[in-house]
């Protein structure tokens, strides 16, 4: 689960161990590992000679970073106005029920993370749910389980 420090070193070297690329390095590790562990943050601090306080400052500021493990598939349910009036709260409810977690949570098998957002900018598709990078538009409550199941099975 935890990315090994040698792997992290490789990523840091790719950016020339330059502290100017701190955010790029963090994003890269976040993408590979889906979260930033405490050990990783301490390692960044030592390798890039950036104070640990500053790394935490950045890592807790941007929503792109997570300091807790995230699931393989990020499930995002839109609760924006257009989706809301087309019944997205029911979609979210169904997703919660299927995954057994509430928004912001991650399933214990680390397959899914669930979150709600306030608009994805594709209101014509509403109600919309995004899994990973795939947008599932014009959803009905009955399809949610099926879609999530298909992601749960693939390995």
């Amino acid at each position, binding site marked *: 689960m935890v990315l090994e420090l040698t792997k992290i070193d490789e990523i840091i070297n790719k950016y020339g161990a330059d502290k100017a690329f701190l955010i790029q390095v963090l994003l890269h590790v976040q993408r590979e590992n889906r979260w930033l562990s405490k050990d990783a943050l301490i390692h960044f601090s030592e390798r890039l000679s950036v*104070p*640990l*306080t500053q790394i*935490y400052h950045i890592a807790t*500021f941007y929503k792109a970073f997570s300091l807790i493990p995230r699931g393989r598939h990020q499930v995002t349910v839109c609760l924006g106005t257009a989706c809301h009036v087309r019944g997205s709260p029911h979609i979210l409810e169904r997703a919660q029920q299927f995954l057994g977690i509430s928004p912001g949570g991650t399933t214990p098998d680390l397959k899914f993370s669930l979150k709600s957002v306030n608009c994805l900018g594709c209101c014509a598709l509403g109600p919309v749910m995004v899994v990973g990078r795939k947008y599932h538009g014009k959803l009905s409550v009955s399809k949610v389980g099926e879609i999530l199941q298909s992601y749960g099975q693939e390995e």
Partner: protein
Amino acid sequence: MTLLEAARTVGIDIPTLCHHEKLAPYGACRLCTVEIVREQHSRLVASYCYPAEDGLVVKTETNRLSKIRKILLELMWARAPGIAPLREYGMRYDITGVRTIREFVIGYEIKTRFETEPTFCILCGLCVRYCAEIKKKHAIGFIGRGTQREVVFFPKIARKECTGCRECFSLCPTGILPPHYALAEVSSTK
């Protein structure tokens, strides 16, 4: 030289909460906001950060400014009720607490204008900046953002560096650092 420094050298007092003469300009509390006038247009700037220049017209006390400072003080009061520097400035700008609004009366309870948990930290950053700029220890830092933003000691570093220093304690306008430090001490022994 900044506007604030220039004003102080000629004895004009501008209220500040996040200013420290040894630290780089920061402008967190915005109490030092002043009006600068250029070609009949006035603009609000933080005097702590704005460089002074020849012939610049600066107003340090106007109705507009006292309104702004009043709101800022109230917001900070909601976070740190009744701390000494806020009481002091409160006298000047006629604030003894957070205003209440009658329309918000629910039952017998009068809701305050700004509903927030008192954290006794106004995020002036004096401790964080002092630790980073003067002591270069980086034992205390900001985490989170928006309303969740807070100041924390980093147990791993604090255990090594803070024992003989604690110079930030006396800088804090609210005096909340000792309990924060105690928390870090407890978690570092775990």
